[in-house]
């Protein structure tokens, strides 16, 4: 469904992503793990079109998208929940969700989708008239995911949905991700620093280090891998 071939991304002279190839099959949850500055966010941004690749190909549903604008890519069915959530702070929760459906014209469908999001995250319904900026971190994450789902994507890019959240909240969000895949066949590319919880929901994973794919394999393989354990799982025991 989503295929990257030899993708390079530069910020000026910084070579942030180096010849990365990866693929995500329909209905799969794939984790992308790596330390700070490994290039995870950069890679997702290039897929959703907010950063440009300097080389390589990105293919979604058989179409090349590496030169497309973000507003076009959403319309193809690929939504991106950005790092740090980036909710529209001054706007209400309901308006944030409504804007998620900016690409959708059938108003009745939008109302039904809105109900579905509220059913998934009841707290959003309770707070629908509040400013998004007034929500807690976990609620903002739910809002950011809800907003992305309002576009009815077939593939979702999630950038560190657990960042700064209590483990309990984080778990709840991952549970929703699994449910979405099970019920809707949603395909997910999930970025996380917390390798353990990411690999717990994912089928497969890629380990990114300084812009390169260092390792890839099924979640079990990665969890059992000595390097992964030392680099990404050991550290979690310390904190």
């Amino acid at each position, binding site marked *: 469904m989503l295929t990257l071939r030899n993708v390079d991304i530069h910020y000026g002279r910084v070579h942030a992503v180096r010849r990365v190839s990866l693929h995500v099959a329909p209905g799969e949850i794939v984790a992308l793990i790596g330390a700070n500055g490994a290039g995870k966010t950069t890679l997702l941004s290039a897929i*959703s*079109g*907010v950063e440009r690749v300097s080389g390589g190909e990105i293919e979604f549903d058989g179409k090349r998208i590496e030169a497309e*604008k*973000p*507003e076009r890519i*959403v*319309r193809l069915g690929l*939504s*991106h929940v*950005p790092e740090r959530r*980036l*909710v*529209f*702070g*001054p*706007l209400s929760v309901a*308006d944030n969700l*409504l*804007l*998620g459906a*900016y*690409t959708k014209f059938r108003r009745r469908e939008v109302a039904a989708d809105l109900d579905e999001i509220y059913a998934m995250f009841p707290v959003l319904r309770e707070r629908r008239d509040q400013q998004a900026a007034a929500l807690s971190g976990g609620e903002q994450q739910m809002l950011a995911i809800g*907003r*992305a789902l*309002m*576009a009815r994507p077939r593939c979702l890019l999630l950038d560190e949905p657990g960042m700064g959240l209590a483990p309990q909240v984080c778990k709840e969000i991952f549970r929703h991700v699994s449910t979405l895949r099970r019920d809707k066949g949603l395909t997910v590319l999930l970025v996380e620093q917390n390798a353990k919880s990411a690999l717990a929901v994912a089928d497969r994973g890629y380990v990114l280090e300084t812009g390169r794919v260092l390792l890839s394999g099924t979640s079990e393989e990665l969890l059992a891998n000595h390097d992964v354990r030392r680099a990404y799982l050991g550290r979690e025991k310390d904190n």
Partner: protein
Amino acid sequence: MFAGAPQYLVSGLTQGAAYGLIGLGFTMIFNTTGIINFAQGEFVMLGGMLSVCLLGAGLPLPLAIVLACLATAAIGGLMERLAIRPIAGAPAVNAVIITIGVSILLRGGAMLAFGKDTHALPAFSGTAPILALGAAIQPQSLWVLAVTLALLAALKLFFTATIQGKAMLACSCQKKAASLVGISVARMALLSFAISGLIGATAGAILAPITMTAYDVGMMLGLKGFAACILGGLGNPFGAAAGGLVLGVLESFGAGFIASGYKDAFAFVVLLLLLFVKPSGLFGKAGVERV
């Protein structure tokens, strides 16, 4: 000594409403693009001058004004498309300098097209003053206030009840997320320039019967509008409108009670004082930050 006060208040509010509209134009563009558009005053000039010109060509006054405003909106849109978008991604300062260039171009073009004469547009509904509250109110003053209120209400509706209005707000607070939900940030920038053109031209057209218009009125009106939106807290559209009213009234009282020769200076003295005391503007939240 204060006998003239009601009269000054009315003329101050009238003038101030126009400043407010001009300030609103600045705010629209600033919020969506981060650019201070120094051609805003030229939009105001075009509203007045195009109305005069179309009226001279034989069109009825209301039609002339509507067409002048729409034409200016189109010029605003074109300005974004031809002068601002090509340097997308460059620092906002570059774009601001381009807007100064566009303002010089529009002023020069207007001088060539319309000449250097000063023109007045006829008042919309006569000039027989209405006596009320110790002041003689020109019917045109009521037009200015009414049109200003109507535009404010329309904008409020645009931002709270339409998806495009909300999308524009989304662009101003969070560009990256806005494009991720499918909003074309470039198109919103174009829309904001067009709406600013429309608002500016409207201010120019409703003010032209009172203060006259010429190819070069844009500079001073633009500065006053800019002062209004700084006064109201840059980025707050309704603050800009209120800032305009405050500025207009201060100016009018200053000119009436102190010295009319310094009329234009009051605005800037007040602005400088305010910036020292409360840099975020009268209605701005203290320490508000923009990203």
